[in-house]
């Protein structure tokens, strides 16, 4: 492991890669800060830029963007009560009241320190857990992988559906349907192309991500522009106050950070859970841990209430890399986008990545940590200046997002069919989002579609067409039982709400 860490450090600490982490953190912070744009959009917008880089550098840039966007989301939560991403909603509960009390600078500093500490602790967990899990995951066979993908898709549907599980499952099926367009990987038979040559190679992953996130996000912002509930709140950006944290506040943070980090990391590892659930659970857990006096301060600017979700969401980000790097199965929408990018570089994440491309495996882990250090030393002093980005008018912001989306697709194919297709998908996605049809399950299903068909093919061929493969192996059976429990729980909660 020490050798691996050294390989990772030597790759991550090269001048180009350090520069990329810095650029990534900075760009991610700015994009993540803009309400409505989260890490998925930020990473999607970076994909075209990484075309010219080698895989490690590209991934390091994306890891920087990821952490930057999560931190940026906290900034808009605290300053505007407008979370850039769902994972920072809980941050606004105590961060925004603090900002209203004239302590915005302090709130941002607490958020930055908590994010850093949560990220550091979880990076250590990742360092220890990932190689061990890689070895365990070598025991996985096709039926287990198939079952694991079913679990991942069910879990992300359950957690991202806001109580509307069926809608999320419909998005999963839609994502899988889109993944079947083009040539079948084994027989080369074309499917669902309707004799259109442009569809023979299938629909590009970048196109789907750009359409369902970047472009539809931009269209949604314009579409809901007249909604008084969504209108951007104004704040005096010159009155951020001091960013210094006193001794009493430091002690409070020191108590909160370890427990929130552990909880965040464990939640992040679970497929589909991620930063949003981690931050809410950490907030709830922290409220139960503190004394009665502190409990009264929750929702009114509590240090514990701000530190807990911020620590947990960053820890969950690191945790979500565990299934991606060890099993090749992304646990969240953001890691699904990163999986797509990895596949674009010709790298198949999974247990063998640790053996075949150790420099990539370790450099991603190490660069995540370096990203957090950079985030702290680069962003903290720049907070007052970065906060001014929130004043960028949407008249400029929206066309620039559309421009980056179209450029990304144009660079890939130099073909205007893809641009038309992207606009079409983005319009459909905008309407679907309007009625709360979630997009992360669609992306995850689209990314996993090919692999899922492949593992199902192998499983069915081995069992000679019999469905016995679903319960022949204990691992498969256990994973499927967990999936059934999640579905059962969703049905039970629906009936409980009814009654």
């Amino acid at each position, binding site marked *: 492991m020490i050798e691996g860490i050294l390989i990772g450090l030597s790759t991550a600490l090269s001048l180009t890669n350090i520069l990329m982490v810095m650029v990534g953190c900075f760009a991610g912070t700015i994009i993540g800060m803009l309400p409505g744009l989260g890490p998925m959009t930020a990473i999607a917008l970076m994909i075209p830029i990484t075309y010219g880089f080698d895989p490690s550098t590209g991934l390091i840039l994306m890891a920087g963007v990821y952490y930057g966007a999560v931190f940026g989301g906290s900034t808009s939560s605290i300053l505007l009560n407008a979370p850039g991403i769902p994972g920072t909603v809980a941050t606004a509960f105590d961060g925004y009241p603090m900002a209203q009390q004239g302590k915005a600078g302090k709130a941002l500093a607490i958020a930055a320190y908590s994010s850093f500490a949560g990220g550091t602790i979880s990076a250590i967990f990742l360092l220890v857990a990932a190689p061990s899990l890689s070895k365990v995951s070598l025991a996985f066979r096709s039926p287990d992988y198939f079952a694991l993908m079913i679990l991942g898709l069910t879990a992300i549907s359950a957690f991202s559906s806001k*109580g509307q599980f069926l809608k999320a499952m419909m998005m999963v099926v839609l994502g899988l349907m889109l993944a*079947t367009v083009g040539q079948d990987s084994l027989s080369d038979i074309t499917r669902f192309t309707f004799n259109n040559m442009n569809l023979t190679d299938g629909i590009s992953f970048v196109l789907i991500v750009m359409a369902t996130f970047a472009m539809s996000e931009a269209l949604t912002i314009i*579409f809901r522009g007249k909604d008084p509930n969504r209108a951007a709140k104004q704040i005096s950006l010159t009155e951020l106050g001091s960013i210094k944290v006193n001794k009493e506040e430091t002690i409070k943070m020191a108590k909160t950070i370890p427990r929130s980090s552990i909880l965040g990391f464990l939640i992040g590892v679970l497929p589909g859970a991620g930063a949003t659930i981690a931050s809410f659970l950490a907030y709830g857990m922290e409220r139960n841990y503190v004394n009665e006096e502190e409990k009264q301060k929750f929702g009114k600017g509590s240090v514990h209430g701000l530190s807990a979700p911020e620590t947990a969401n960053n820890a969950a980000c690191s945790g979500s890399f565990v299934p991606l790097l060890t099993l090749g199965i992304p646990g969240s929408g953001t890691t699904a986008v990163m999986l797509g990018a990895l596949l674009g570089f010709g790298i198949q994440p999974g247990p063998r990545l640790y053996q075949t491309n150790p420099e990539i495996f370790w450099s991603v882990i190490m660069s995540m940590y370096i990203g957090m250090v950079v985030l702290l030393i680069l962003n903290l002093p720049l907070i007052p200046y970065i906060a001014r980005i929130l004043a960028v008018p949407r008249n400029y912001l929206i066309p620039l997002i559309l421009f980056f989306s179209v450029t990304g697709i144009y660079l890939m194919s130099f073909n205007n069919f893809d641009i038309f297709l992207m606009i079409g998908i983005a319009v459909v996605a905008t309407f679907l989002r309007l009625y709360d049809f979630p997009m992360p399950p669609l992306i995850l299903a689209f990314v996993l579609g090919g692999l899922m068909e492949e593992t199902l093919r192998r499983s069915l061929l081995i069992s000679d067409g019999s469905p016995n493969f679903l319960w022949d192996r204990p691992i498969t059976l256990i994973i499927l039982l967990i999936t059934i429990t999640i579905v059962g729980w969703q049905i039970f909660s629906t009936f409980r709400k009814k009654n």
Partner: protein
Amino acid sequence: MRISPTKFISLLFLVLSVFYLYTAYNIQVFAFDENAPFNARTFPIYLGWAGIILSSLKIILPEKLTTEVNHKHLDYKSIIYLIIISLIYAAVILKIGYFISTSLFLFASYYFLGERRWGLMFILSFPFVAAFMYLLHGLLNIYLRDPFLKYIGVMG
């Protein structure tokens, strides 16, 4: 009888799933693969049935959480303008090249979204696209096809 938008979307999804399933059954597979445990049709057929079952459940089951959208608060005019500009942009990008089409797209988008500061609009369109192209083409060595710039000799 009023049908909710969610159920209407589910109905469209049901139609899509039926069409998908019909197309899946008509995928031409090799003769020796026809009776194999798994062929190019198998997975799409499962998906078609899954789509039909899920959308039917959504249509049949009563809605617990309804998503209310106030159409008065939706800016249809701006979004239609943006989509039309984007479609025109996609249609002309190959003919007039990346630089001009992108700059004009940005300029027109700023205008239709209500911006009237002409100087800033210009800077954030033509020079901005030129700088971006220099970053991609000149510094990162990413090829950007532009027949117009090639014609006037700016690009190789």
